[in-house]
């Protein structure tokens, strides 16, 4: 720790760390400086220039986000020169921006709009540049819409795609007045390495990158009396939705969310957590089978480590970047798609419904799930397994449109048949959750005893470090698993694709010998997904994670294999994990893709 230095802001002295920037110091001191290109998740760019401040003794203003403090620096954040410059910069951005705010999806949640309101940009002086440019809107991706006319070139999306995800689907192209954010050869987002993770959407300050919304389609289905519309909700939605409703970050709103969905008119409100539990049964069995094949039978086709397959952003990533490793992926569908396949088979049969009349909607913290639902292989029920995928944000829009006072809603419970879940399923929403859930079940299946962790909380796989490793030694297994006696099961957890890459490279270079690896495309796991409320940052994700683990702790059932509806579906319909029906409905295959 280096020595503190003394600086002054607006005449008040502060002792600060010399590594800190003017912006950080000012924020700590409660002084607000407007920003646009700055984001806590990303490296400093210093390109929007809206955060400029005056440093006494310098003619030029300093970009506070990019300027480190030095001893005896005198900073002024509210002078005429500073205000006029900031106002000018906002005016410049607006002149280049399609400021047709009322027709923008992000109306009301736009950082540029907020600044324009704050600085009261009323003048019509500057020339509108929007008309001079041949802006295009890329609508071909089923997940993401890219509208260049609303782009302010802050490059947050570019840095997100590079730094958080290591995908680099978005990059800067051209220079000067032609400078824009584009893709490889300016292809559609649908035709490049984009994983549809939606992190760019989460980090975009304006409406330049938004999810493709299916709100009207869902409303239409709900109003159609012929249709039986069911909805499933992913675990991370219940710890994010509240933010959109003006409720404090990190609040669990499960009961109110269910009540709202019922009010919206869904015929049955069900839980993706049910298929998360099912995933554990299938994936856990798959892991144990693989281990046996690899360790006992020496079957070269049994590839280890086994990677989880719940995150469709990760699936698209590995298909593009490591197609040679597709055999290492678990063949399990994601919980969303397992649910979809069962909705039009098991659910339809049990409820005596014509599957053709069922509209299967899912609410996900995710934009990649939209793409996933379009995959040609996701029709195992004989129909499209999941018809519409909404993000947490889209659900919030529907709730508001329906005139529901969310805060005052009484709590309700999920409907039965595919609505029951365990705590193990809930933690799917946080990074490390699938691993923890799988270990809780697999360890018990193998040894007949609970995992040796206090309150079943497997602390080593929790947390927000990009890559986490854990191992668990299997002792005194049941007879049929005796080959695992003394085996140290090595696991790893990674979240954010840039961390996935680290794991993949380590495995490729034989620097790691994991058996089982959980990978989630988004930082923090699904709770930080591309479909979650905006803004996102490390603190927000920490608080959502805390809420998820609370939800788990309060659940009466904590282990997937104890979910009574899971037990029932194996008894009545699937018969056994990895069985014939499971194979048809719950498992899938992958498609090698190219990078270019």
């Amino acid at each position, binding site marked *: 720790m280096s020595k503190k230095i003394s600086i002054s802001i607006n005449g008040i002295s502060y002792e600060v760390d010399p590594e800190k920037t003017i912006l950080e110091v000012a924020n700590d001191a409660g002084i607000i400086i407007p920003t646009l290109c700055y984001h806590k998740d990303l490296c*400093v*760019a*210093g*390109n*929007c*220039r*809206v955060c*400029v401040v005056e440093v006494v003794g310098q*003619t*030029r*203003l300093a*970009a506070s986000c*990019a*300027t*480190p403090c030095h001893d005896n620096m005198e900073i002024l954040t509210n002078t005429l*020169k500073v205000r*006029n*410059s900031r106002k*000018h*910069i906002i005016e*410049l*951005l607006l*002149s*280049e921006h399609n400021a047709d705010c009322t027709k923008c999806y992000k109306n009301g949640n736009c950082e540029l709009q907020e600044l324009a309101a704050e600085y009261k940009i009323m003048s019509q*002086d*500057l*020339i509108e*540049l929007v008309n*001079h440019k041949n802006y295009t809107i890329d609508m071909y991706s089923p997940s993401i819409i890219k509208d260049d006319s609303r782009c*302010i*070139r802050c*490059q947050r999306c570019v840095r997100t795609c590079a730094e958080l995800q290591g995908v680099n689907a978005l990059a*800067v192209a*051209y*220079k*000067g*007045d*032609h*400078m824009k954010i584009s893709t490889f050869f300016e292809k559609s987002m649908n035709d490049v390495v984009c994983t549809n993770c939606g992190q760019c959407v989460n980090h975009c300050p304006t409406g330049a990158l938004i999810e493709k919304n299916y709100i009207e389609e869902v409303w239409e289905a709900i109003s159609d009396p012929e249709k039986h519309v069911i909805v499933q909700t992913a675990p991370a939605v219940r710890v994010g939705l509240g933010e959109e409703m003006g409720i404090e970050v990190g609040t669990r709103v499960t009961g109110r969310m269910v009540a709202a969905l019922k009010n919206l008119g869904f015929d049955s409100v069900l839980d993706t957590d049910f298929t998360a539990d099912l995933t554990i049964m299938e994936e856990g069995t798959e892991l144990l089978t693989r281990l046996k094949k690899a360790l006992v039978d020496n079957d070269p086709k049994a590839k280890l480590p086994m990677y989880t397959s719940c995150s469709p952003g990760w699936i698209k990533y590995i298909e593009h970047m490591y197609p040679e490793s597709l055999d290492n992926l678990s063949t399990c569908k994601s919980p969303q798609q397992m649910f979809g396949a069962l909705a039009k088979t098991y659910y339809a049969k049990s409820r005596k419904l014509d599957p053709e009349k069922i509209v299967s909607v899912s609410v996900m913290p995710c934009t990649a799930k939209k793409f996933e639902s379009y995959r040609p292989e996701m029709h195992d029920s004989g129909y499209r397994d999941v018809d519409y995928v909404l993000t947490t944000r889209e659900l919030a829009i529907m709730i508001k449109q329906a005139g529901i006072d969310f805060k005052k809603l009484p709590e309700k419970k999920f409907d039965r048949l595919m609505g029951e879940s365990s705590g193990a399923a809930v933690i799917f929403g946080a990074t490390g959750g699938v691993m923890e859930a799988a270990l809780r079940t697999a360890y018990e299946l193998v040894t007949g005893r609970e995992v040796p962790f206090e309150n079943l909380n497997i602390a080593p796989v929790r947390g927000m470090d990009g890559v986490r490793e854990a191992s668990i030694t299997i002792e005194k297994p049941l007879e049929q698993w005796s080959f695992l006696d003394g085996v140290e099961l090595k696991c790893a957890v990674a979240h954010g694709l840039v961390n996935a890459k680290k794991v993949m490279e380590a495995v490729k270079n034989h620097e790691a010998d994991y058996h089982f690896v959980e990978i989630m495309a988004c930082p923090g796991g699904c709770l930080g997904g591309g479909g979650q409320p905006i803004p996102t940052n490390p603190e927000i994700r920490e608080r959502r994670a805390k809420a998820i683990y609370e939800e788990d702790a309060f659940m009466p059932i904590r282990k997937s294999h104890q979910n009574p509806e899971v037990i029932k579906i194996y008894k009545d319909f699937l018969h056994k994990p990895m069985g014939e029906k499971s194979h048809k409905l719950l498992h899938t295959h992958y498609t090698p893709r190219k990078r270019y």
Partner: protein
Amino acid sequence: MAEHYNLKRADFIFRNENDWEKILSRTLEKDKQELINELISSELKGRGGAGFPTGLKWKLASEAVADQKYVICNADEGEPGTFKDREILTKVPFKVLTGMGICGYISGASQGYIYLRGEYKFLKADLEKAISEFEYYCKEINFDFNIKIFMGSGAYICGEETALMESMEGFRGEPRNKPPFPTNQGYMGKPTVINNVETLAHTFTIFKHGAKKFYDLGVQFSRGTKLFSVSGDTPKPGIYELELGMSLQDFVDEFGDGDTKAVQVGGASGFLVPRKRFGVTSIGFKGKLTGISLPTGGSMMLFNSTRSMFNVLDNYLEFFREESCGQCTPCRVGCQQLLLGIKAVKQGQKQAAYLDKLLKLTETMQYTAKCGLGQSVANSFSSIVENFREEMIY
């Protein structure tokens, strides 16, 4: 009362000297600190435009602690109206290479690069020949120093030192935030001295003839000589080595065609000086007379009364609009607004008073743009609009 200096021609840079080997080996025997002091006392300032004291730059790099350091010769000569570096590299490449070598010795860098402007590809073969001869001699005298050429691709912004380094590292040529400065974290994050071609050639003169000889030329704050690229309405365009501190009137008397209306000093990013101010403008770094600085490497463009200053400005703005890297708001959008703005005034779509709003805008650009490009657009804009306002309107 303004002091006047008559135009004084000098002949150091292009003087044909075949003693670079002697100068190099002789200088490398000297104490580094002594050499830094020599360079500092010459008061040589960077000839690329910004005018940073060269001795101080080398000193900072020599004091930086790192396992690897670099010397870069900035030969991305792109300022409109500047063409002297091309000539230096063609005629006297060994002076530049020797300057780089000595800089490497002083700063502790064993690797040098020449960032050669994309359009100067035709210089590459000859330059490589010179480099291999130079490296051969270095090996002979047991001096560990190598030089590679890195070809630019034609972007003006890559002449900006940090954009140049980004470009060399394989990234988009976009200026970095400063600090950190290149002497601490430059190419590949290592301490780097980056100097203009001409600056390095001048260091040869200084190490050969001593700092005093250089210091005695020019005037206070603007010591030594400078190459000027003279173009436009002149009977004798070309490259001239002149002592700094001359009055612009003397310059025009020498190079004008008798009808000089204005001179653009320092290229598109420099200032336009109208006839009425020739007598009170001296050419040198800040502090003398009217304090016109040389924002770039000595481009002198003369315009006679047949020229429309609107067209001149229009041309410069067109250039900046295209050559801005586009990353920062004031420069990217500002340049577009200025260009469309003067056109709108000219065509009567905006009132003349709009020019004042644009002048305010250039002020914001000057205060807030990320790098020298955006900051200096104000120079030509305000000096042209303020002095030739009527030409902008009618």
